[in-house]
């Protein structure tokens, strides 16, 4: 099958590659670009581990072809830290609130939460839970992931984070 030349912006850098039309975006990101922070979980559009941000949308990169991302602006987990290399509010939240155990779902969780907080900087707990309903975590029971996102929201809004009483 003839290969197609694609160009896109990933984490601020212009990248290019030759792909078959059937190459999934997640495979292009992991194999052509060697950005292996984006994980492949279920491969059936359920688990959200492969979530990346594309042109202002959270997308499961296992369910889109690389050719469809031609000209797009993409952010993966490798591109979320602050410009000086320090942890972003969300990364810090996941660290401080222990929002992960095995860590497999974390890149997808953080990229999804990134877009959620852009669209709704002060979400309620219910809105956070619905907002990450396309991301599955098999370790935490979600409690600390929700807290991590609340921590990040508070930090972004410049207010002190207070954990709700258990």
């Amino acid at each position, binding site marked *: *099958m*003839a290969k*197609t030349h694609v160009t896109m912006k990933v984490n601020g850098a212009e990248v290019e590659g030759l792909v*078959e*039309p*059937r190459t*999934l975006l997640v*495979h292009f990101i992991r194999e052509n670009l060697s950005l292996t922070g984006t994980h492949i979980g279920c*491969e*059936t*559009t*359920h688990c*959200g581990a492969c*979530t990346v941000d594309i042109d202002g*949308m*959270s*997308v*499961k990169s*296992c*369910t*889109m*072809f690389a*050719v*469809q991302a031609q000209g797009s602006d993409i952010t993966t987990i490798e591109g979320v830290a602050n410009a000086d290399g320090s942890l972003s509010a969300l990364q810090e939240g996941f660290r401080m609130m222990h929002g992960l155990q095995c860590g497999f779902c974390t890149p997808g969780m953080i990229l*999804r939460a990134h877009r*959620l907080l852009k669209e709704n900087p002060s979400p309620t707990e219910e809105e956070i839970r*619905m*907002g*990450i*309903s*396309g991301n599955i975590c098999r370790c935490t029971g979600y409690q600390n992931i929700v807290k991590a996102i609340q921590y990040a929201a508070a930090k972004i809004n410049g207010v002190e984070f207070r954990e709700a009483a258990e």
Partner: protein
Amino acid sequence: MIPGPFSYYRPATVADAVKLLSTLGDEARPLAGGHSLVPMMKLRLASPEHLVDLHGIAGLKGIHRDGNTIVIGAMTTQHELLASDEIGKSLPIMDETALLIADPQVRYRGTIGGNVANGDPGNDMPALMMTLGATYRLEGASGAREVAAHEFYQGAYFTALEPGELLTAISIPVPAAGHGYAYEKLKRKVGDYATAAAAVVLTMAGGKVATCKIGLTNLSETPLLAEDAAKAVIGTSLDPATLKQAAAAAEAIMSPAADARGPVEYRKHVGGIMVMRALQRAAGRAG
């Protein structure tokens, strides 16, 4: 999992897309949001030789009001429906339904056109489109035609679409001001298809139901309009006996498959409950 090989096309106009689909023949498939087709391709349950991606066609996007009709381009995503003030104001039941489809990531990509055109009995929008009296615009090599949603669905994955035809837009008459509405969906988890779901749009006058339409999702090979159930509630105040009568009339036309969502009897039973809940909630919202 990697799909089988295919050649990829990205036309810029509906005319070019239709031309491609008719030239490439049976082995070509249009690609909308891809959140039904791509997983099927990865499982090798679908292996089209040609994909005609509709994302490059600007004319298939957007929501506008034309008099008393809302016209929605086929490539409008569920996320765009939810973000639209026009939909929120004129067709709030579409927001309620869209929010029950899949999950946020899927709603950024999944389109209204793909949802209604695929013919999957589990999809939520088709029964709603029948309830709202929507019509679909189908464009093919020999021109365009309008087909009513209630005449579109012929069987699971069988629709009125002819080979080479594309569903390009949906027209929905704006329901009367003060109408009541509800979409009740029972599902096992976020992202699941309905075990049973019911859409209700009604108007009330003097505490009694004046007009009513009821649609059913995933309770047959096609979406259903529960016409006898709707007739049963006209002129009533939705007292418990009437609600039970409406549920029974709706159950009489259901023929769900027995699957992981439950045996036939269970799915019909909860289907009746979805009808009763949707009727009550819709009546409570009617002004």
